[in-house]
């Protein structure tokens, strides 16, 4: 790891730190904790080279790398439709969107790297099946209308989740989220537009749009994570100012937005129990199949194996490019060095 950078580095302890006495180390840790606590109390930001509790680092590393993996795997359901988009315009839009997802993955890997893990190690964990990513991307995109439903609901849910993360207490994560959120709103609008056009098209097209909404509704709601009473890490993440709202709070807020927007689409949400709670003034959704959520998360969803296989294949296909670029760089560096010696 680079050890002196803006973005990067917690770095290994320096030689000097190895020689410190136990008392001195304990004093530094106490100072670090006090500073960290003050940052949390002031709702300020922690930066990569600040002292942080090991559990905070671990939690963030897990969350940010899973988030990055989700962006990278998330390219697949849509990439599947690039060559079959109904027009050149839609094809160009879809390509731009998939390219954005790759970019989002890279911003997030960069943010995660500042916590001390090299990107290659994270990618290896993903390919080895050791790392998790959002369960939503293990569902298949069966028709063109799924591109609409994914943009509108999946990206919509992602935005609802990500906007509060712009204020996450870890600086690099918050900054990556600001960039991601700016770009994500086009994703949701283009999805909404696809559905709107289909719903105003032929009866068959309208039906195709409705079926896609039916397929993606429950998985999109489950993107917010398990219900609050079954989400053991939420409380700590909220205490650390990483998470700002609970899973259920965000989910209900999202359902409210969907209820308004689905009317404009002249479609319906596949949830007969959805209701507006007059007391809390919030929308509430019907029961979700959490057993399915845990199955998919555990690797037994409809497309888990296919997604990982494709990721490995793409990585292997790129090996020669990575090697050639590294060789070329080494050769150029050598030439440059020889020139400098000669001069």
């Amino acid at each position: 790891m680079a050890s002196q950078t803006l973005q990067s580095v917690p770095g290994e302890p320096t030689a000097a730190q190895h020689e410190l006495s136990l008392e001195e180390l304990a004093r530094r840790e106490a100072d670090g904790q006090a500073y960290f606590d003050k940052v949390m109390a002031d709702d300020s930001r922690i930066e990569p080279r600040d002292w942080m509790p090991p559990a905070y680092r671990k939690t963030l590393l897990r969350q940010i790398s899973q988030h990055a993996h989700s962006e990278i795997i998330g390219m697949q359901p849509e990439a599947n439709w690039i060559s079959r988009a109904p027009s050149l315009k839609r094809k160009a839009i879809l390509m731009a969107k998939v390219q954005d997802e790759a970019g989002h993955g890279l911003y997030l890997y960069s943010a995660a790297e500042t916590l001390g893990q090299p990107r290659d190690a994270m990618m290896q964990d993903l390919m080895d099946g050791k790392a998790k990513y959002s369960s939503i991307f293990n569902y298949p995109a069966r028709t063109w209308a799924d591109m609409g439903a994914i943009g509108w609901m999946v990206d919509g849910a992602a935005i609802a989740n990500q906007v509060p993360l712009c204020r996450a207490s870890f600086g690099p994560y918050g900054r990556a989220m600001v960039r991601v959120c700016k770009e994500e709103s086009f994703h949701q609008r283009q999805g909404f537009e696809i559905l709107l056009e289909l719903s105003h098209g032929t009866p068959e097209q309208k039906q195709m749009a409705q079926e896609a909404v039916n397929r993606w509704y429950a998985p999109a709601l489950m993107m917010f994570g398990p219900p609050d009473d079954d989400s053991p890490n939420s409380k700590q993440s909220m205490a650390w100012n990483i998470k700002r709202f609970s899973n259920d709070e965000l989910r209900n807020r999202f359902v409210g937005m969907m209820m308004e927007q689905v009317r404009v689409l002249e479609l319906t949400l596949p949830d007969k129990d959805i209701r507006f709670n007059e007391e809390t003034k919030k929308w509430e959704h019907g029961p979700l199949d959490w057993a399915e959520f845990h199955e998919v998360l555990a690797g037994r969803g409809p497309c888990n194996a296919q997604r990982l296989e494709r990721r490995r294949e793409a990585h292997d296909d790129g090996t020669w490019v990575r090697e050639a670029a590294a060789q070329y760089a080494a050769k150029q560096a050598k030439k440059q060095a020889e020139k400098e010696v000669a001069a």
Partner: protein
Amino acid sequence: MTTPEPHAGNVWPIWEVFVRSSRGLSHVHAGSLHAPDAAMALRNARDLYTRRNEGVSIWVVPADAIASSDPDAKGAFFESPQGKDYRHATYYTKSEGVKHL
């Protein structure tokens, strides 16, 4: 520009990216990326950080080449401006209400 040594395991080194959003403004840190050399770092930076006309100029700097102040020395290192509020215009209050001052 010199290219930094690749890290162990043939991993491409990290570069920090600075983008000038329009003429007349300075380059601002946008993020980082991995690339084998400066030319590739610039191309990757263009694709990663300027997909929507965010910039008219890009700098890439090997992350290893950047020196930074010690994070543990927050207080001590930046101590000198403290208590010197006479360096700010707001310190001088007697001129309040006087025009063009």
